[in-house]
């Protein structure tokens, strides 16, 4: 994926929130994480391959996930259900990405994690982290590419 493709991925994520919840996320200044490794309560990872292999992910606090689900008419709070829910969100984003990119990129089935548990990336992979605010919540879109 090129830099522009990765930017498209970010746009798709923003568009998802705007369309689904009617609240547009506000993007902040990105940072590159080197040794620090931040993941919030619930994270959905989308594996990408092609010229650049790695992960695009969305990490959000529990409160935000509950609010997103609330916007969609759901009221769930069980940990395993929340984990499934974040998986569903990234599945929809993945499906939108497939629609945009067509067959030229392989985008695998999403992976979810609560905190750093089961996260498919480690602190050893430098990450591009784009913080955004959605309503009163702070979340991240991350990109972790293999060098």
């Amino acid at each position, binding site marked *: 994926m090129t*830099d*522009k493709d*990765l*930017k498209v991925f*970010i746009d798709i994520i923003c568009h998802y929130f705007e369309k689904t919840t009617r609240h547009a996320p506000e*993007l902040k*200044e*990105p*940072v*590159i*994480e*080197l*040794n*620090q490794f931040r993941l919030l309560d619930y994270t959905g990872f989308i594996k990408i391959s092609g010229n*650049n292999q790695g992960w695009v992910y969305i990490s959000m606090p529990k409160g935000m996930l509950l609010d997103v689900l609330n916007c969609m008419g759901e009221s769930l709070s069980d940990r395993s259900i929340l984990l499934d829910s974040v998986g569903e969100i990234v599945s929809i984003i993945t499906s939108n990405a497939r629609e945009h990119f067509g067959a030229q990129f392989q985008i695998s089935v999403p992976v979810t994690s609560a905190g750093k548990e089961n996260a498919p990336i480690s602190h*050893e992979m*430098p990450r*591009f*982290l*784009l913080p955004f605010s959605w309503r009163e919540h702070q979340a991240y879109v991350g*990109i972790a*590419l293999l*060098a």
Partner: protein
Amino acid sequence: MITLHDGLERASKFDELASTLQLRRYEWAFLLALDGRTSAREIGKSLGLDDTTVLTMADFFLEQQLIVARSYSLSEYTRLFNVKNGAAPTTASTAVNGIGSPAQTRTGASPISFSLKRKPAAASTPTPTTGPSLKLKPIMDFVIRQSGGGTTGQIAAYRVLLKVPRPLLQAMKIESINFIDDNFELPNHEAYHAIVDGIKSVLNVTYQAA
């Protein structure tokens, strides 16, 4: 480790390695002025470079196997520096600068004392007025501009950093890099050159510091 008093010369692999290098003007000037005899300090002085910059640059070139510190046999030393066998120069600088002027001598052998030692901090922190700036922001700004700006450019900057060898990134001992931080400086020239190489690899352009 190189001292300011060393006579430096280009390594045997210099021509082969140099063909792949992108260096600043004063760095080429320094490399091409090496003759194995004139001290690093004197060459630096002739180019208007301060001692710290010379040491940092020479250490980097040594690491890259571009240069070696010249050793002399006794006969070479006495011949090259006009020192009589059995006599020692009165000062360290006259003994090691060796730019062709006869060294001052005194009778009676006494050990030469080299008082100049590199300060640990100075070894990795060149003076901004003469060395390449180690500030990261101008380099990142260059990458972002080259890639069309905005988030796309910032992603390109991230991909450039991915090209920096992991041990070097870890050695920076930084948690994160903020694109708007004016003050962040790279720890050494090795990191600087790794990033410049990364720019070439990712964007296929050569970074020229302003």
